[in-house]
Structure formats: structure tokens, C-alpha cells
């Protein structure tokens, strides 16, 4: 049974459909990447998975259990973590308080998980008493990922984690995503940097106009000349 499966999902805002039948499935140990042109519904699909968008048709299953239209705090309890693209930290809270909020539902784990997250992102340990709003974009992304990891999720959703970051941080974030996945966390990620993202993807989903255009392994999509010509810029 796949960790996450979306079957023929329709949905949008205010009666306007942005998703017109999206299908995706990833296994528990996989990295799934959603790529596609602007306005294809990539981020919208991620929001639909995390219950932030009303799904009008189709279903979304977590380990075979329907989860569409469940409130976010229930999804967190079920092991899902979500990192939005923008506004992904609590700016006036310190780094450590940001992380503590990630384990809000499991306060008994805070101490142990803080150690793990600091070991995983050493720069955060030095900045733990600084407010998150003062950090650089890359460090903020670390705080955002750390916050999501604090809940020990089994599935992590990332919305364009490298948007607006310098190439140095970009590589670091992709490396970290690979490491998190290697530790046994399923990943579903939306990315603008399609080539780099597909290179680490087990499954790739190329969306256009709210529908799957191509669905294959990351390597196969990278090798496909048609995908390359229409979506990866040659």
C-alpha cells in the first residue's frame, strides 16, 4: 500500500477548479517531486494534500485511509508535516521556540527532538535564542524544516524549499531532503528547480493545467527528451 495516494483530485478556490484530476502515489521510503510550469497547480496540489484546500472530487489516502478535508491538526497527528513556501517560521519567536512548536502535540518529545534537530542543523544551535525573523532565508528554511521534523513525521510535504535561496543553500537543502528521506521519512516536494529536484526523486509528477502530463521515475523523466524540451528548458 502506498504511503500517500491521490486519485483523480479536483479542487480549487471559490468554485474555480485549479486541479483537474491529479493522480500521484509515493511509497513510504520515496521522494516524490511535483514539477511543472507556473500556474500548473503544483502548490495547490500540495495544499490539497495537507487539507488547506477543499477537494471537490477524488480522494487522497494516507496509508489507504481517506484524509481529504481533515483539519491540519488531525493530519499532524497522523504523521504529516507541512512546510509552506512563504511565512514558514514564527518571526517573533526564537529559533528554539519555533522548533518547540513543531512538537506541540508531543511535548514529552521536545528535549530529545531538539537535540536531534540541532545535531542535524548545527547552525541552529548557535542561533537558538535569536528570533527567527532575524535569520537569513537559508537559515529560516532550516528552522522551517527543523520545526516540521520535531513532530517526527512519516510524510513531509515541502513547498518550493529552495525558492529564493543562493545556489550554495540550494544544494544544502537538497542534500538535507535526501538525508531526511534516508532516515525513513517519505517526501513530497514541489520544486521550481526541476532538474535538481528530479535528480533526487524516486517519483516525478509533471503537472500542467492541473493534470498529470508525465508520471515516471525521476531518472526516466530527466532522460525523456519530450519532458526536457517542454518543461526543463531544453
Amino acid at each position, binding site marked *: 500500500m502506498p504511503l500517500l495516494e491521490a486519485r483523480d483530485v479536483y479542487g480549487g478556490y471559490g468554485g474555480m477548479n485549479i486541479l483537474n484530476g491529479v493522480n500521484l502515489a509515493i511509497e513510504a521510503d520515496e521522494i516524490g517531486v511535483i514539477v511543472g510550469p507556473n500556474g500548473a497547480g503544483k502548490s495547490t496540489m500540495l495544499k490539497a494534500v495537507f487539507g*488547506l484546500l477543499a477537494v471537490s472530487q477524488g480522494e487522497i489516502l494516507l496509508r489507504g485511509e481517506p484524509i481529504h478535508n481533515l483539519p491540519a491538526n488531525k493530519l499532524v497527528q497522523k504523521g504529516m508535516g507541512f512546510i509552506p513556501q512563504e511565512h*514558514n517560521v514564527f518571526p517573533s*519567536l526564537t529559533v528554539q*521556540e*519555533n522548533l518547540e*512548536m513543531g512538537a506541540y502535540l508531543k511535548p514529552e518529545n521536545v528535549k530529545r527532538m531538539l537535540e536531534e534537530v540541532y545535531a542535524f542543523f548545527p547552525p541552529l544551535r548557535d542561533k537558538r535564542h535569536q528570533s527567527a525573523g532575524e535569520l537569513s532565508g537559508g537559515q529560516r528554511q532550516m528552522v522551517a524544516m527543523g520545526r516540521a521534523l520535531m513532530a517526527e513525521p512519516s510524510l513531509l510535504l515541502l513547498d518550493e524549499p529552495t525558492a529564493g535561496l543562493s545556489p550554495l543553500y540550494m544544494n544544502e537543502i537538497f542534500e538535507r531532503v535526501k538525508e531526511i528521506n534516508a532516515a525513513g521519512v517519505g517526501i513530497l516536494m514541489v520544486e521550481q528547480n526541476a532538474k535538481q529536484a528530479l535528480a533526487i526523486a524516486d517519483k516525478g509528477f509533471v503537472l500542467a493545467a492541473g493534470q498529470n502530463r508525465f508520471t515516471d521515475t525521476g531518472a526516466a523523466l530527466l532522460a525523456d527528451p519530450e519532458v526536457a524540451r517542454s518543461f526543463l528548458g531544453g
Partner: protein
Amino acid sequence: MNELVFFINNVIVAGSVTGSIYAIGAVGVTLIFSIMRFAHFAHADMMTFGAAMVLLLTLAFPGVGSAVGLPTAVVMLPLAMALTALLAVGVDRAFYKPLRAHGVKPIVMVIASLGVTLMLQGVIRLFAGTSGRSLYIGERKEIYRLELPFEAITRPVIVTEPQVILFVLTIAAVVGLHLFLSRSRLGKAMRAMSDNPDLALASGINTNTIVAVTWVIAGSLAAIAGTLLSLDVTFKPDLSFFLLLPIFAAAIVGGVGHPYGAIAGGFVVGFAETLAVFNWTVLLRPFQQHFPGWLELPRNLAFVGTEYKIVVPFFILVAILVWRPTGLFKGKVIT
């Protein structure tokens, strides 16, 4: 040097008293705004409601205070706080929550809170009467006279019992609030929700719980502030009329959404009021001989008369909105 004592009594003591009351009220306004994003106009009536509860409880059990050596009203305060918190949560469930569920604009919430204000005023008059009442029922207000150890000073600094209680409770409330917001899991979640409600939800924070906790805190603080004011002067069913403007001015001066800013703002507005009605002639009279002969000091040299005290917070409010709409501590702008 007695003029100095006059200044201490009429500005330092009086300003701290008013400042404390405004500060505690403004903290509630700012907390509600930072969690629910609307200006809660019924807040001053929640303060009055708390004081009315104290009045009714004191009338019902007049002898309790003497058993512990405190005014009965103070002994009844915790119960009144609980009742006001209950009222706040109830009002939210009945009126604000359905509107929130519809995702209405903040202005709709503001108008709803105006409706709640009118309703609360009716309820308060229904049970607590329409006239002013002292919260000291069959008890005497202790007055402490502190003689200063200087030969030139013959007059004492005067502090009353309710004022001492007020200072103690204000300090306790501020320290308690600080510890809650900086140390407790719920307090941090409250700050998180104020920062970024969507991310709070995505972190698994149950925002309904936070909303309820906010009302409990704001309601209890409102009861404290209303009771302290009524203890210092007298209970009046239309107290809110004199409170609404100053507490909103205080919250905005401090930067809306900043609890510490609201406390600072409360004292700024409180001291501005007392300084504005202070008779400066008293301080200037000793220097009369240095003034040119044609300049005679008027008997009363205050910026505004006591009866116009309310224009001071109003002026501060307008000034801060024009020149520094985010307040002293860079808060949110009420829209």
C-alpha cells in the same frame, strides 16, 4: 518642599493608579487583537462586568473580608475573575465564533462587539443598578500616611489601601503574564498563533483552544482592572464610557499585538492624563519672586480641566495614528 509631596500625591501616585488600570485593560485588547484580529470594543464593559460581579458578591457575603483582614471585594475578586472569564468565553461562543466560522471581515466583528457592549451595559444595569456604589460595604478604606524624613516636608505622602492592593495585583498580573507567554507551552503557542495563524495550524496547534485561553486571560484581566478602578473610586455602571478610549489609546500607543507595549502604553496614557490635569501653579509658586512683576500666576494652571480629562487619551490616540500608526513597539495596524 510640600509642593513636591503634592506632586507625588497628584501625579506619581495618581498616574501609577490610572496607568496600572489602563495597562491591564489594554493587555486584554491587544491579546484579543493579536489572536482574533479585531478591535474588541466590548472590552471596557467586560471590565465593568467584572466589577459588577465583585459588587454583587460583596453584597451577598459582606462579612467575608474581615475574616482574612482584606476588603471583602478583594476576597471576591478571584470568583469575579472566573465569572468574567466564563462570560468572555460564552460571548465568544455565542456571537464571535459563528462570525469567525463565516470568515467575515474584521469590521463585522468590531460592530458585533459594539452590540455586545450595549447588551452588557443592559445586563450590568439590570443586576447592579444604575447608580454609583462603593465596593466598600460596611468597611472602611484604610489610608496610609507616609511621613517623609525631611524637615522641610510637613505633609505626608498619601496612599490608600485599594491603591496598595492595586500595585501588588498589577505587578502580579504583569509578572504572571510574562511567565505565561515566555515559559508555558500554551503561552508560546499563543504567540505563535499571533505571529502566523496558518503555520500554527500546520504545527498541530488547536487554534480553538488558543482562542478560548485568550478569552479566559482577557476576561480575568478585565475583571481585575474594573474592580481595581471601582475600589479606588466607586463602582458605576457606565464606567466603560471612561475606559474604552484610554485602553484603546494605550494598546495603540504600545503597538497593537504587543502585550508589553500595551503595559507601557497604559502608563504613558495614565501619566499623560494626570499630568494634563495637574495644577502646575503649585510647583511654580515657590519661584514667584523670580518672575517679572507683570506675570502673575493664575490660580489654576492645568492643560485641561479635570472634567475634560477624556480628551487627553483622545488626543494621544489621534496623534499616534497620524505620526506613528504602528505604536512605540512596531505593532500591527488596526484595519
